[in-house]
């Protein structure tokens, strides 16, 4: 384990910032280009995970355990969000027999 820790010290924190930004952007693009509600949901999960990784990196680099506790809370929140969101999607599918979000555009008005 010591050599893993010493090898990760060489990676600059900038690279974690860039990696998290790229994954967050991929999540945003996924929300914008897909029409399947479940895949939009997965993109939101990707964005949450990018933030989790960045918080963990900050916590590990600054030697403060609070960041990793926040990540733990975000994971609990994500589990709750997925359960409620998938229940809503199941209900939408039962009412419209589709998960296409363009059918739901009546919610706009």
């Amino acid at each position, binding site marked *: 384990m010591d050599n*893993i820790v010493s*090898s*990760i*010290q060489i*990676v*600059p*924190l*900038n690279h974690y*910032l*860039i*990696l998290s930004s790229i*994954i*967050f*952007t*991929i*999540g*945003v*693009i*996924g929300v*914008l*280009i*897909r*029409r*399947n509600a*479940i*895949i939009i949901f*997965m993109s939101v*999960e*990707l964005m949450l*995970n990018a933030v*989790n*990784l960045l918080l*963990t*990196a900050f*916590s*590990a*680099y*600054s*030697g403060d*355990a*609070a960041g*990793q*506790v926040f990540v*733990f*809370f975000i*994971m*609990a*929140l*994500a*589990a*709750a*969000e*997925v*359960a*409620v969101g*998938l*229940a809503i999607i*199941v209900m939408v599918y*039962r009412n419209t027999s589709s998960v296409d979000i*363009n059918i739901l555009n009546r919610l706009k008005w």
Partner: protein
Amino acid sequence: MILFYIVSLLTITFSILVIFTKNPIYSVLYLIATFFTFTVHYILLNAQFLAMVNFIVYMGAIMVLFLFVLMLMNLNKETEPMKSNLIKIIAVIAGGSLLVTLIGSFKQMGAMGVSTVNKPEIGLVENLGKVLFSDFLLPFELSSILLLLAMVGAVLLAKKDKSDNG
């Protein structure tokens, strides 16, 4: 150090495949692979507790929920109507400008190269448990109430209402 870049490349590849695959089942499988690479990232950061929680919660619970819903609704066909190419191009351009803005602002922050991992044992279960049950005791208990509410809400939403007044 080279391991970090290999795993990062895998993470980016799998997450791109998640949003560009036509079949939703394959998307879920690529998402599982993405979460596995996140677990490897946590292990590399010596955050072992988070690695195990990520492994169990995301790759276990959440992915089973996704797969369960997909197979229950029989959505594993590739007949999903896609958005038009114009909207796709606009979305990719918008995402690219978001990425450029983020990276530019990080560059403006400057002096981010503080690679002094002074306490490498911080992510172990013992230390995180001490912090979690002393400083963050109230949020921890509140999150249990949140999970209970989410469970009740999910059951209430997903059950078939037999009569109109519930």
